[in-house]
Structure formats: structure tokens, C-alpha cells
């Protein structure tokens, strides 16, 4: 129907750049928004079952590797906002969750993001979405595990270990089901209300590039043949800070214009997983060498993922 509308009512020539761009937008935007609303609603409900307190309890005193796997997995479903990174870090470390396990959680929580999963699924299909989850988990697990092995506790600000967590005194909130549904609805209002503009902009840029920018434009810069493209994309991605909703459409444009999948994904993971503002926040509890080690290990993991993708696809 939108085909007919674009071709006949608006009198645009089929195949013209503008008509193609408009068609792309009209198809993509409602599709992505619908998916986003549905999934965020359900994720919002699921998350009411996974409070940070419960996650911490599950991780207390866990053996390193099992603990890393659990922490990374729980990082996906436990509600997390980077502004809570410090109290969460303090709470985890203080109650005896090993440093490396805490890091697995802190890496997975922002990097594997439900909005990114939906958008990747919507734009590239389930395979790419699944690989994104799998490799993201692997990076979080292995990076945390390595940080644990390196015994870097000496680079945590000493006051962290001297402080003691009080008891919140609140009875654990146990919402009934209708409350959970309304919390899911709140999540939709909050997240969709915030990201729809980025999705629209991203798809619009995508639509624009769809019609106008030549297909092979990015190939020389971010194509497979350019070996340096992956480390470069990661370096560029660190200071850039965007939420997942804003970055996926950009990634889709990059790929469309000749960037290889591995390079584009590495760029995306770097932008959402390694963010400068979060590092600045974490500096309050971590000494600089630990922050650099953290960036180094995660960056290296992302790089391997990027090369792996370029090799497979």
C-alpha cells in the first residue's frame, strides 16, 4: 500500500532517489517501532524479577569462571543504568563478589542491550542478533575472568574495601503481577519515549544514504581489505557515546555502503560498551591503571570479534 501511495499519490518516479529513500523509511520505521515497543514491554516485566540485590546474592562467593558466566548472563537481564555503576560496584565488591566477576557484570550490562538486539534483528535478521549476544557474552566473561586472574585489587581505591554497606531496612519489594505489568508499561514509556527520535533519525539517515550515497563509499575505509579498519573503528568508538538505539541505524548505513560486518559491529560494541562518561564515573573507585587495563582487555576482545566476523562472512 505504501508502494502505491509513494508511486501514485505523490507522483514520484519509481526508482528515483527520493522515492527509494521514502519507501525505505515508510517500511522500516513502523516495523522497528512496533518491535521495540513489544520487546521493551516484555523485557520490562522480566526485569522486575531480577533486582540488583538478587543478582548480587546469586554472585556472592562464586568461583571465578562460573561466577563470570553467571555475572555476564545476569548483566543482560538485570536493570542497569550507567549512573548506578558506582553504588552497584561498591555493593558487589563489598559483599564479597570477586573483582573479576563484578567486571563481567559491568561489561555485559551496557554492552548487551535489548534495544540493540531488537534493532539488529529488525535490520539484519536473527543470525546477526544472535552472534551479537554470543560474542558480547564471550567478551564480558573472558575480560572479567582475565581481570580476576591478574589480581588487580590493588588498583581499586582503598576506601572501597574499608566501607561497609548498610542494610537498606526495606522489605524486598515484591510487586504483584499487575504491578509488574505497569512497570513494564513504564519501561516502554521511558525507553521508547526517549529513543524513538534516534530511531527515526537513524533510519532517516539510512534512508538518505540508501538513495544517495554510492554503494562502495565506505568500502575503502571500513571494508575487509583494510586491516587497520577494526582497531581504528574501536578507537573512534571509545569517545563517541551513543545509546544503542542511535548507533544501530548508523551501523546499518555503514554496512550498506560497503563496510564489512565485523568492522561495523566492532565499532558499535566500542561505542556502547566502552564509553568515556562511564570511565570518568568509574575513576572514583578505580585507579587509572585498572581503567586502562579494562579498556585494553575489552577493546582487544572486541577486535578479535571484529576479525572473526570478517573472516567468517
Amino acid at each position, binding site marked *: 500500500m505504501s508502494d502505491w501511495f509513494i508511486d501514485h499519490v505523490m507522483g514520484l518516479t519509481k526508482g528515483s532517489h527520493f522515492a527509494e529513500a521514502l519507501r525505505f523509511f515508510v517500511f522500516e520505521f513502523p516495523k522497528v517501532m512496533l518491535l521495540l515497543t513489544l520487546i521493551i514491554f516484555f523485557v520490562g516485566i522480566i526485569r522486575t524479577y531480577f*533486582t*540488583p*540485590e538478587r543478582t*548480587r546474592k546469586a554472585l556472592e562467593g562464586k568461583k571465578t569462571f562460573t561466577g563470570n558466566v553467571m555475572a555476564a548472563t545476569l548483566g543482560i537481564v538485570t*536493570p542497569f*543504568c550507567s*549512573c*548506578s555503576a*558506582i*553504588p*552497584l560496584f*561498591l*555493593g*558487589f565488591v*563489598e559483599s564479597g563478589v570477586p573483582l573479576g566477576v563484578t567486571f563481567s557484570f559491568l561489561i555485559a550490562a551496557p554492552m548487551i542491550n535489548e534495544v540493540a538486539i531488537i534493532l539488529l534483528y529488525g535490520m539484519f535478521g536473527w543470525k546477526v542478533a544472535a552472534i551479537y549476544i554470543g560474542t558480547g557474552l564471550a567478551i564480558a566473561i573472558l575480560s572479567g575472568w582475565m581481570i580476576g586472574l591478574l589480581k588487580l585489587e590493588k588498583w581499586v581505591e582503598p*576506601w572501597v574495601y574499608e*566501607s*561497609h*554497606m*548498610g*542494610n*537498606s*531496612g*526495606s522489605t524486598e519489594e515484591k510487586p504483584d503481577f499487575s504491578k509488574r505489568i505497569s*512497570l513494564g508499561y*513504564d519501561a516502554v514509556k*521511558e525507553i521508547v519515549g526517549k529513543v524513538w527520535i534516534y530511531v527515526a533519525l537513524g533510519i532517516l539517515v539510512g534512508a538518505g544514504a540508501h538513495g544517495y550515497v554510492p554503494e562502495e563509499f565506505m568500502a575503502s575505509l571500513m571494508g575487509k581489505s583494510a586491516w587497520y579498519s577494526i582497531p581504528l573503528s574501536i578507537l573512534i568508538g571509545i569517545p563517541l557515546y551513543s545509546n544503542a538505539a542511535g548507533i544501530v541505524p548508523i551501523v546499518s548505513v555503514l554496512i550498506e555502503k560497503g563496510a564489512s560486518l565485523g568492522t561495523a559491529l566492532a565499532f558499535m560494541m566500542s561505542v556502547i560498551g566502552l564509553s568515556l562518561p562511564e570511565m570518568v*564515573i568509574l575513576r*572514583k*573507585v578505580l585507579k587509572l591503571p585498572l581503567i586502562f587495563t579494562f579498556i585494553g582487555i575489552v577493546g582487544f576482545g572486541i577486535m578479535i570479534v571484529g576479525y572473526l566476523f570478517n573472516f567468517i562472512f
Partner: protein
Amino acid sequence: MEIKILGSGCAKCKTLEKLTREVVQQNGIDATITKVEDFLEIMKLGVMTTPALVVDGKVEIKGRIPSTDEIKQILTKTI
């Protein structure tokens, strides 16, 4: 009544503070509102996710922004 808003100055924490002040003012509740930004203080209250709303030493809300109705309910139930 002593109300504390816990949070290190992120957008959500500011929203919670604003909403709480509104509710207190509109309903003529006798309360002092303080913003707690120090992580050690926040930790002493046992809170891991900000923003949080603490009333007379009891953590009522953590990790999310409640609606004004919910804040009103919390602030009026103790009276």
C-alpha cells in the same frame, strides 16, 4: 518527616527530586528534603541502584522514578 533523595546527579535523580518537592509542596507536607550525592552515604543506606527515595531512614523506592501518585501515597501513609 525527613526525606532523602539518593543519587549522584544523573538526570533521573534530578527528576525524582523535582517530583518529590512538587508532591510535598502541593500537599502541604511538613518535611525536609535533602539530596544525598556522596557514594559512602548512599552505601550506608544499603542502596545499589539510584535514584532512591528514603523517608525517615526507610528506603521506599530504588532504581526507578515513581509517579507523583506513588510518591504521594508513600509520603502520606505514615501520617
